[in-house]
């Protein structure tokens, strides 16, 4: 059984905990930016397809 009085705070690990969470945020931002870029590329390519398809239809 743990007792509070047996525990000593570890500031350096708390700092590492902050780093880990900030790192996670950074990774997530990368993911969001990557997916945003993919979406943009996908939407950029769509008009061409539509045009090609439209031309065929003509």
């Amino acid at each position, binding site marked *: 059984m743990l007792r509070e*009085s047996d525990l*000593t705070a570890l500031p350096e690990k708390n700092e590492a905990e902050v780093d880990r969470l900030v790192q*996670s*945020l950074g990774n997530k*931002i990368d*993911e969001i930016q990557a997916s945003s870029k993919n979406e943009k590329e996908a939407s950029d390519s769509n008009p061409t397809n539509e045009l090609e398809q439209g031309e065929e239809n003509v």
Partner: protein
Amino acid sequence: MSEYASDPSETDFQAPETGGVTPQPELKKYPNWVELAKQKIQEILQSKLKQGASAEPATDQTGVESPADQVEAETPQQEEIKALTEAVLAKISEQLGSNPGGWYEHQETHEKYYVKYYDNPDRARVEFVANAVYAQLGIPAAKSELFETDDGRLAIAAKEIPGTEAATGEQMRASQDVRSGFLADAFLANWDVVGLVNDNIVQGSDGRMHRIDNGGSLIYRAQGGAKNYSGSEIPELQTMLNPEYSAGKVFAGMTEEELHDQAQNLVNRIDKAFIDQIIAQAGLSGEVAEQVREGLKGRLQFIKERFGVEKEETEPNPWQGVVERLRTDAERVKGVEFRGHTDVTIDKDKIEGQRLDIIDARDAGYYTVYFKLTQGQYDQMVQKMHGMSEAYGSRIAYPFKDNYGYDQQFDVTQAWTIETEDLEIRIAMPNSSKDVDKGNGRAGLGLVEIKIKTTEELTPEMIREKLEKAFEKLELQEALTSPDDEAERKFKIARYCWQQKIDEASLTPEDIARIEANLQRQEVFPGYSTMVEPGKSKEYAEIVPFAIQHGIYNENALIKIIRAGGLIATQERFRRGSAETGMSSGTDMDTGGADSVFTRIITENDSMSGGIGHPQIIFNPDILDRTDWYSYETDKYGSTAPSYFSSRLTPEELLQRGKNHGLPENNEQMFRYGIPLDKMLGVVVEGNTYVEDSLLYLLRSGGQDVDSQLVGRLIDQGPSAIKAECQSRGIDDYMVGDFITSDARLRLIDKLNVAGIQEVNGIPVEEFITTGQNRKDLIKLTQERLGQE
């Protein structure tokens, strides 16, 4: 404490100084983790969002720039990043900001814990339940325990997972650990399993993905608000696969087959009894307990019906529960400097006792596994080792801490050593001494030591996998299988023949049938099992009444024996890291006696005339039901050297000799591994005929009359009562102390009381420790104690 708000813009980012909670002294050096986080987030935002940060960033009430405000939320992506930034800050604020949560180290064990303090104790309890469910399912997750703080709040502490690193969503999607836990996440409604920024699952240095924050499970949201946790269905089986949410992004694409396998595992490992047990263990009560219980039981039933699975009856798996048993044992012997240990039943005929002894020596950097090869197998192994080029010579030695806390080693024997990246395997070299009876560690003969190098807790499957590799090296793969019925039968016969010194060939079919029916495997010491023939000791007692005793030469050893849970053989004590030495530990390691504990038998016809002498532990005679003890009529240091061992007595021979002409005082009865505390009936010390007179004299020194009955009563009641009475009479403490020290029984009771031991096996120590005049009194006391049972 600041609380998350449903709208991130309402989140309170106040630092401890302004949060109304007294900052912890340890945090002074780093007064504000939230400020530090803001700075770090600012840096990361600047590098990732080159465009969009305003030239004059907004500030919040702490005067520190709020990084989230730097994100100009013009697009949905920027909106998302802003919300996530605020959520990360809110999390840091809650866990490290305005309350004393965060990382701590245990001053004695140096284990590191992540501690969270909740204002609502049920949040801690519910998180504990969720973690326990993951553990039961074998899914890597935080291993937590609850404890009460000095000011009466409930906190939850999770043990450190070494070397953790942030994992990306992509890594999670590819991880079997993450995917295989999906059904458990849905079962627990752990909506926030992945975390808003994929921060609730981390990769450990063991390469596995661990779910570290399961506080948003069952009836609570991650932010602590209540949520509906219904048992009638599991909507999370759909919602948590929706890629609009963090969890869905990770779990998308789960197949029906994967879900079915996970359902089978869940139904196999979790039942209603487990749910009740874990709710009770968490200390949940009242309405909250019922909500959690109904939710879990209902969802268990839902899973059975939805996937058409029922609990599978499985073959008993000897490895199941190994890690829990190690933990329980370590807890049991806490404070005795013993390492936790347990055993696993395996093999047919290659390993002595069909058992492996596993010791959790991670304090020294490994789990150690010990076993002894049977004679024929050992001879083959010796031949094999002579021809193995990768084996080099070293020694088997047991690391332990001495009484001053220094690391020491107890040297056992020379050994061949094979080393791999994660294993050290040692096989004892055979006896090379000319003195075959007392030389070169007979206790090491046949001994194999396997060290699994790790400081981290392994799962039973991982321990087994590592051992498989070691056994492959030794070409012993077959031995790692559980004994089947035939192996069990053979082992019963072998044990019986060993103890009764009978050649197996001479057994009649009736003998064999009787042995098979009567012998059964029992755990005769915590973590040690052998074959037992229940009731056999009663047959022995019909030959001649007897008592079994063990003398204690150092009274302090009794405290250690009680705390360790019984008498433990020298070899086991050293393996488990205890510095306490026995009477002749070095000699016993040579003779082979170190594998056993030493006792003596006293029969009614013994010609002993001496008194009790040292305190004597008396044992329940039913320990003679065991088949793993051997007997000498006189002292042989428990030798297993062939010249002595062939002359050992069978139990009947021993007691027949006791009946015919009594046994010598120095006879030896050797019990393998140990004798547990619950087989100790009491401790008998030399009676002191002057004790009443001395106490009368002492009490009278207080100057008041003494009732003659009071003296006898106080002596029965023991040192505490005597001290209290003397104090009330104004008698000096040192005189009382001198009196107590002068009497063997009172002195021993006092030592136990001072060590915090008030009773043994439910008997108050004042009764447990009793007096006798001569050694034959031990027989009478044994019978009395059994009559009391």
